[in-house]
């Protein structure tokens, strides 16, 4: 069912190219921080729809609960008390996956088909294919994915791909009491944002603006911020997010080099085993050495 409704643009670590013929609407979720009341309805609706329940935690002296994203909490509200020009502000930001156009997680993921980008812009994790290596976490400039302790697989917001695939909005969007979260085509969301930014400017927020960072090719979750010049004020939203050097390198010249190196190591190991017998692997190369099939790697 869903394969027909959501076309795939990119798959992690997959040998074949994805079909590119069909064009679908590029969607986006717009989070207008200036009308967010931090009620956490989005958190609750997310967990309800997705059948996840975080453990009941503790109050640690702030309103934030759960205190961080987890495999069982895909979105959390982050509260920051800030004072500027003698005026107190309570900046409340819904944190979760940004669904980057150029997703660092997907680039970093070594497991074929564990991370998928649909042509509408959603970046989805497919846990059946996840090997729990955690590279998506190092690949993510927003520190979003989390590995579950129960099954050692990575989880994050799916943008309710199951709902979007049948034409519905994500659960958080639907439930949002004040309409601070909206959903539609990315183009429409940019228009909505422009209207909001204009309103905020009339209310004295000279630096109001849209957060759609180009360092990751733009995102499919965007924010309207009263202080777009200082995104860090919103509980550390990165000013200029970009995919980490490690992942960039990996996808660039390092990967083929490593492949050759590993293949060589594998072959060496294989012949070493045949000719010399078993060796005791040191900590660093135990994985590679344990896998004599590495010679297949050059096809990837």
């Amino acid at each position: 069912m869903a394969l027909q409704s959501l076309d795939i643009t990119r798959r992690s670590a997959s040998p074949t190219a994805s079909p590119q013929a069909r064009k679908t609407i590029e969607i986006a979720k717009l989070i207008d921080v200036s009308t967010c009341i931090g009620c956490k309805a989005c958190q609750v609706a997310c967990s309800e729809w997705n059948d996840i329940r975080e453990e009941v935690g503790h109050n640690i002296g702030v309103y934030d609960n759960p205190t961080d994203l987890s495999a069982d909490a895909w979105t959390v509200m982050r509260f920051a008390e800030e004072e500027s020009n003698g005026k107190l502000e309570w900046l409340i930001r819904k944190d979760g996956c940004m669904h980057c156009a150029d997703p660092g997680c997907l680039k970093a993921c070594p497991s074929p088909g564990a991370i998928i980008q649909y042509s509408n812009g959603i970046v989805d994790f497919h846990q059946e294919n996840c090997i729990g290596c955690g590279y998506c976490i190092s690949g993510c400039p927003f520190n979003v994915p989390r590995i579950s302790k129960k099954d050692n697989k990575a989880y994050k917001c799916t943008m309710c791909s199951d709902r979007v695939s049948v034409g519905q909005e994500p659960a958080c969007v639907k439930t949002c009491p004040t309409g601070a979260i909206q959903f539609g085509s990315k183009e429409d969301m940019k228009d909505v944002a422009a209207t909001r930014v204009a309103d905020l400017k009339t209310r004295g927020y000279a630096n109001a603006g849209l957060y759609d960072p180009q360092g990751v090719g733009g995102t499919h979750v965007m924010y309207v911020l009263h202080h777009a010049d200082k995104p860090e004020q919103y509980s550390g939203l990165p000013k200029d997010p970009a995919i980490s050097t490690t992942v960039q390198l990996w996808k660039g010249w390092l990967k083929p080099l490593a492949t050759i190196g590993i293949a060589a190591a594998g072959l060496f190991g294989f012949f070493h085993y045949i000719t010399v017998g078993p060796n005791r692997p040191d900590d660093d190369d135990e994985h590679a050495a344990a896998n004599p099939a590495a010679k297949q790697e050059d096809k990837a």
Partner: protein
Amino acid sequence: MEVNRRQFFKLSAAQVGASSLVAMGFSPAEALAEVRQYKLLGARETRNTCTYCSVGCGLILYSLGDGAKNAKAEIMHIEGDPDHPVSRGSLCPKGAGLLDFIHSPKRLKYPEVREAGSNEWKRISWHDAIHRIAKHMKADRDANVLDKNADGVPLNRWLTTAMLTASAGSNETGIITQKFLRSLGIIATDAQARVCHGPTVSALASTFGRGAMTNSWVDIKNADFILVMGGNAAEAHPVGFKWAIEAKKTRGTKLIVVDPRYNRTAAVSDLYMPIRAGADIPFLGGVINWLIAHDKIHWEYVKAYTNASFIVGEGFGFEEGLFSGYDEAKGKYDRSSWAYELDADGNAKTDPTLQHPRCVWNLMKAHFARYTPEVVTNLCGTPVEGFLEVCKQLGETARPDKVGTILYALGWTQHTVGAQNIRTMAMIQLLLGNMGMPGGGVNALRGHSNIQGLSDLGLLSTALPGYLTLPNEKDHPDYASYIAKTTPKALQPNQFNYWSNTPKFFVSLMKWFWGDKASADNNWGFDWLPKWDKLYDVLHIVELMHQGKMNGFIVQGFNPLASFPDATKVTQAFSKLKYMVIIDPIATETSTFWQNHGESHDVNPADIHTEVFRLPSTCFAEEDGAIVSSARWLQWHWKGADAPGEAKGDNEIIGELFNTLRQMYLQEGGKVAEPILNVAWNYRDPNAPSAEELAREMNGKALADLPDPKEAGKFLAKKGEQLPGFAALQDDGSTSCACWIFSGSWTQAGNQMARRDNTDTGLGNTPGWSWAWPANRRILYNRASCNPAGAPWDPTRKLIGWNGEKWAGADIPDFKADAGPDSGMNPFIMNPEGVARLFCTDKLADGPFPEHYEPMESPIGTNPLHPKVVSSPAVRIFKTDRERLGTHKEFPYVGTTYRLTEHFQFWTKSVLLNAIAQPEQFVEIGEALAKEKGIVQGDTVKVSSKRGFIKAKAVVTKRLMALQVNGQTVHQIGIPLHWGWEGVAQKGYLTNSLPPAVGDCNTQTPEYKSFLVNLEKA
């Protein structure tokens, strides 16, 4: 370069491992990937209404199976109904988590009893439970019911068993409970309205004629200015607050928040101003003074539609903090001097020029002249510029084409001056001409899903359905005196004075109570109604229990141990009862008040001899019925699944209990048995009256053909038909109606409450969606949106207008439809004056004008306006409670309690999704005070009052600022109220161990918003 050797090998190795799997043929299918399958395609959808607050959001319940008989429906998902005109698919964190309420591990499944002195529950059968309870009740009633007083007035008053009714129950449960209660003679009864919006009813009814939110949720979008004060709309009513945000987005509306805390409403406001809890009247009184001084008055409106020109009698006065007529010994006012001067015809004298020194305008002006900006700042601690900005913004709306609204809730009601807080704002809205206007009004945001309905149904000690009063022993010993004293005479010529129809409402109600047994010969069964002597509100009930004067307590969907003030006293009071009956879907602290929970609830079960019965009831998702939203919409909901275990519907529980009792009276006889034997109980299954039957009774039906007085040969209704509305009610016994204001909700055309046409007829009005009392009017007093000549004050905001023949428009006119502008009839049709009251004559216990009095526990210990009268002179406080008041010397900080958006009262700590979102009890402390006390973020602190203490986590925040009040620094501590020991959240202390048992002068709603505490690091 951040790639070291180890990273390089890890990356490479994983790639090798993964790609190798592909190579070995394990994963081509997975590599394509699919999204999770959409889970609702074939699920059955049932329409319902959220059970928490009174925004009344639409729900869709999704259940397993498609409704086939062989499939057992199990609700597996709930989301918002996108067709609902108010919620439009949204749900707040409570509504979004409803699934976990329905499936809470704390749901009750079987009847249980906790025997005297025992430390455990024992499962029993329904039969045994009902029979044991009925025996207790009959024994107590037979021993204690009062038959007649010394003058021979029949009393049917049973004071030794009390009952609380459920604000989340349906109207249908409410009305059958009303019949049950009054036939038994119970007047020690109350609903959650007493601990929340009692003062709203009192204040708004005494000003405008009806005690309800005046406009609707969607209408907030029509406001040019929104003040949120005495409430926290974003947190307590998030989905209703949608429309405040809509106004901001679409009209450029300014939103100002005035509150002791910078709260989540403040987070999206244009301006936030701090205020000391309990200093709202100085602030609002200051606004009145400023508006008058700066001539920001909608003069035409004020002169035409208020009593500004009415002349007050000579005896009225105000001096040194006291209005005329104060009796110090009684601690009460004789209110006879708070009256108009009448002419020979009984009409109030007026001076349209407003020159008369005793006209309301001049008295009001003089009264509030004392509330200067300096006085405001001194008492409130609010910066003067902020106060003036609020005045300016409000003042802008004095123009006919600018309208402002106020959203408030318990921040104003839960004070000894609760009703007067609201009165002050009501007066401001009249001065600005904002009443009856789209985008205006005084919007009381009710807290519980059907507390509006329970208020409407008279489930309060001295009330009857439709805001009729229960007869009083002294004032109304017989039918004639009741009718004479409760039917007002018009105070101006040509007024509608709708309460002049009281006899029709009352006789129709009696026909519902007693059926064929009510006749003109027996005054419609008047003698069988219980007669009250005093108000038995919850504070009074607890006091009587504490004195050992009560034996039984029936608690339907209420958690009084957590909800009532001074939990220690409440526990002692409950421990003196013989029996307690809990009817609830979930486990409450009240039901386990006999359990020891360490220092948070240190009791010895063996010492408590109360027999406690716990009966499991259905919740909203498991029943049909209607509940009334804050905007007075009666919305019908449908059952989505069966209740768990042996849980039964409330109607069934009340039905079985009543019939068991009645059977006992039939067989054994008993004291004052007549009302029990005579009450009409003609339901298809007497043990389980259906929601439909009861809803139809609330609408009312014709008991004989009702000829149409306007057209010969036509009928308003034929015998046996449902009535078209309350205009058809009669006082000759030919109509029966359980609640006159609900008449029109289930007519011959069917169930109007189930209507789902969301067509916008203009300005966001959706008259085809559900049904609103009265007569489906959505904005009360909407005649006042037009000038006296019948044209809208603001042509862009035309709600109704006079078309030459009648009033018509987007809303149903709240007026006599054919009374033209030249009729002289005025818009406030429930008031005998026809106009709204700036001076509310004798309607309130504590004064015809609001005056600032300090909370009973004042942080400054004086009242700079009149040091001899510090707190309100009209407060009722029991001796034992007075002894439990603290002073600012021992308890220097102001405590104020409130709700968090993640939780609903004491229910959602039993709901996993909400427990996750806000898991543990905390208090909010300003940075300055925290520093002084050496408290840091996340510390455990102890907050204590004269009455008890709690321990909680500290949220240290910039959002609570130290205020300068009367020359001293006042720190306020914010205390969310949601915790206890039952539930799935972290266990906590009962917040209401802290506040004092003293209430609003008019309604006894407890002073939860301002009391004194101390603070230490635990």
